[in-house]
């Protein structure tokens, strides 16, 4: 059907070679370094760009055709969802917090990745690489847009969605994904590919779009499931691109190995920290859960990532440096994250809550070695304070990690009762870190990470000068509507009232 040629029936591989790879040529009016100025400074040696493989071999006509098919399905579903008040089908309005975090923290990253891949689509000197990057660039625009469109109808009825574009640039927890993406965007082209192609696509999006979206389906949210799975159908191409890029670098020159290993170490840890958000959404914010974050990480992180590293071992790649620490954090991270979000709930454009008895029973079952021992008692304590009318709130943020920008709320890998805190002196300043992983990343590129924009510092500087009300206005946070405990929130009240209206004759 697509690009069939009558003369000789060309196979997919031959067609792709003639219609895509053969388009390029060696420039002669300018030297290659002028045309592709950024491709050497990272130290990656490439001898033959022709060796790059793009196993999907899509030509544009096929791309348009299949993507349009996906798009028609997607918009048909979200139109129906909006027309039929599909938002009332979700299990419980607590679920909305996960969507609010998604829109504020993840969707802007999709757009950013698109921009980055447009750059890569120009900066790499090989047609195969360029075209795969360009297709990813346009796909990422798609993902940002389908997410905004799917969640737009929720914004019309619920709080916390309305200021996602302001939150992206100003909100304290949004600096976590922002610093991740800004880090990738400010890196060279090959590191960008490891950051987004490998860490974000291969490790993270599987967790984000597969078990989380399956969870969305389980919670009755067809709009989100649809954008999630529809996006993920593109991610299969993107993951393949990330994987091919790693293989390509390693096969081109043995000198590339230490550079690639260093990036894998760095971006595995960066990705793992970012995943803490997704894990928390899975463990705490889905009223009905398909699997725990731990179980999902076992499948998509340990099993799938493990298979990849076993496969790359032939090139001399070893599992990333933070692999063991990540394993140790698995049973703790989401609980520590949710406790932190709860205590800072005055400053989040989504609601958090004390887990119900039923939630806690589930968490005990899924985290048998840690939840009852370390985290249930803390929730019980918080619950008591709340019942006594003295709810627990932390009005100042903890120190932010200079690298990942999460408050330093995580514990030592081998001691879940001690907060992990690292410090580094650099040029007379002290910098704080949440983990060895983040400290190592800083130490390799201190000049980069000292530039990080820390939202806490901004609150205490002019023009906000520590004024909480002014800060809320600055981040477009509607106090008493967007933030605080789910219990007693407007979202909770409205959802219940509308649902009752829908299910009764009153």
């Amino acid at each position, binding site marked *: 059907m697509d690009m069939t040629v009558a003369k000789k029936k060309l196979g997919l591989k031959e067609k792709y070679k003639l219609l895509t790879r*053969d388009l390029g040529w060696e*420039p002669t009016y*300018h030297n290659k370094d002028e045309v592709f100025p950024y491709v050497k400074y990272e130290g990656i040696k490439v001898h033959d760009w022709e060796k790059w493989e793009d196993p999907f071999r899509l030509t*544009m006509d096929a791309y348009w055709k299949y993507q349009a098919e996906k798009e028609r399905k997607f918009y048909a579903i979200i139109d129906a969802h909006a027309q039929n008040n599909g938002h009332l089908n979700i299990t419980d309005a607590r679920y909305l917090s996960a969507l609010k975090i998604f829109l504020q923290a993840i969707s802007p990253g999709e757009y950013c990745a698109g921009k980055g891949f447009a750059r890569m689509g120009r900066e790499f000197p090989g047609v195969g690489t360029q075209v795969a990057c360009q297709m990813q660039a346009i796909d990422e625009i798609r993902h940002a847009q389908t997410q905004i469109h799917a969640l737009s109808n929720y914004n019309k009825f619920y709080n916390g969605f309305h200021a996602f574009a302001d939150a992206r640039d100003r909100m304290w927890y949004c600096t976590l994904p*922002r610093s991740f993406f800004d880090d990738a965007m*400010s890196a060279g082209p090959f590191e960008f590919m490891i950051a987004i192609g490998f860490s974000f696509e291969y490790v993270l999006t599987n967790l984000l779009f597969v078990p989380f979206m399956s969870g969305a389906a389980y919670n009755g949210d067809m709009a989100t499931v649809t954008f999630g799975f529809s996006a993920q159908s593109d991610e299969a191409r993107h993951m393949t691109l990330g994987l091919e890029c790693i293989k390509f670098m390693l096969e081109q020159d043995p000198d590339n190995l230490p550079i690639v290993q260093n990036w894998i170490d760095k971006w595995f840890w960066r990705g793992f920290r970012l995943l803490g958000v997704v894990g928390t959404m899975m463990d705490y914010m889905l009223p009905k859960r398909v699997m725990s974050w731990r179980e999902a990480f076992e499948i998509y992180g340990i099993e799938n990532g493990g298979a990849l590293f076993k496969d790359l071992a032939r090139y001399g790649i070893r599992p990333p440096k933070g692999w063991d620490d990540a394993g140790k954090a698995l049973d703790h991270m989401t609980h520590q994250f949710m406790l932190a979000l709860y205590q800072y709930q005055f400053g989040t454009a989504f609601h958090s809550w004390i887990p119900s008895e039923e939630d806690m029973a589930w968490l005990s079952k899924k985290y048998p070695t840690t939840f009852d021992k370390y985290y249930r008692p803390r929730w019980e304590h918080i619950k008591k304070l709340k019942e006594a009318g003295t709810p627990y709130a932390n009005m100042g943020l903890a120190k932010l990690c200079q690298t990942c920008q999460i408050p330093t709320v995580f514990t030592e890998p081998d001691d879940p009762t001690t907060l992990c805190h690292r410090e580094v002196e650099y040029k007379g300043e002290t910098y704080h870190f949440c983990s060895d992983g983040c400290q190592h990343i800083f130490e390799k590129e201190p000049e980069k990470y000292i530039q*990080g924009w820390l939202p806490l510092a901004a609150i205490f500087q002019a023009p906000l000068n520590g004024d909480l009300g002014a800060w809320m206005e600055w981040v477009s946070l509607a106090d008493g509507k967007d933030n605080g405990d789910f219990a007693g929130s407007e979202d909770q009240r*409205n959802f219940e009232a509308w649902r009752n209206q829908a299910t009764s004759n009153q």
Partner: protein
Amino acid sequence: MQIDLRTVSIKPQRNTFDHLARRFGDKPASRYQEGSYDIQATENLHYRPTWDPDQQIYDASITKIVMKDWYALKDPRQYYYNTYTVARARQQETAEANFSFVESRGLADMLPAEMKEIALRVLVPLRHAAWGANMNNSFICGYGYAAIFTQACMFHAMDNLGIAQYLSRLGLLLGDTEGLNEGKQAWLESDVWQPLRRYVEDCLVVRDPFELFVAQNVALDGLLYPLVYGRVVDGFLSANGASSIAMLTQFMNDWFGETQKWIDAVLKTVAAESEDNRALLREWAGKWGARAAAALLPIVQQALEGNADEAVGEEMAAFKARLAKLGIEI
């Protein structure tokens, strides 16, 4: 539990997102607006690029053009991913039907030999020029400012690739793999093609995204499409018994007509913003336009021979008139 929710009438709490209400007032926004405005980060960028520490990650000052608000560059087609892809999928179906019509009826073999030869000589090397256009538009998307402008450039880049692939299929249909090889040889070595190849390679080292927009999308394509697809294919080849070629290039003609609306809207807005912008556009369009005309002359001479000078002159006049309407006198 599936409940019938359709019958419930609930009053929305708000019409749209804050950033859109600030721009357009408190009313429901279109999907084009939701997907395009203010979705690029603007504040508190974390790190300077290691590839060029003088730039910011998103930097409006990479180009000399100055806009108070780059989001003024609205696309009159209102393309976001969905509307773009669905439109191209439809055109792709027509193109597929056209190719299959020509193939199944053996129309390529019925072409006058001389016309087939001319078509191969004029059209096939252009697949490389289209690949250059693709790289340039990928660059403009990558380093240009504001999603509303740069997403359209990415769509344009993918179109450029699609055109390069349709030209490759045309080459295969008329001349098999040798047709493509000869075309590439000509692109690399023939005197006829060197001015154009030089133009394209010169564009590949322009790192001002808006100058590149003018050099590629305004000047080169603004002259190439009417000359090649209008004058040579629809005019000369069709008049000489080779009208089936025009079926294979219908996509390019339709595409040029459609995308010109977007390009003109962008130019008009940028020129109207300030005299400085207008002066830059005049300089760039003048400089690149003259070079493009000179580079295209030997190419169309292969078909139009003695009439080529006049054709190029007329298209150049039309090009100037088009720009003048947009406030850019060259």
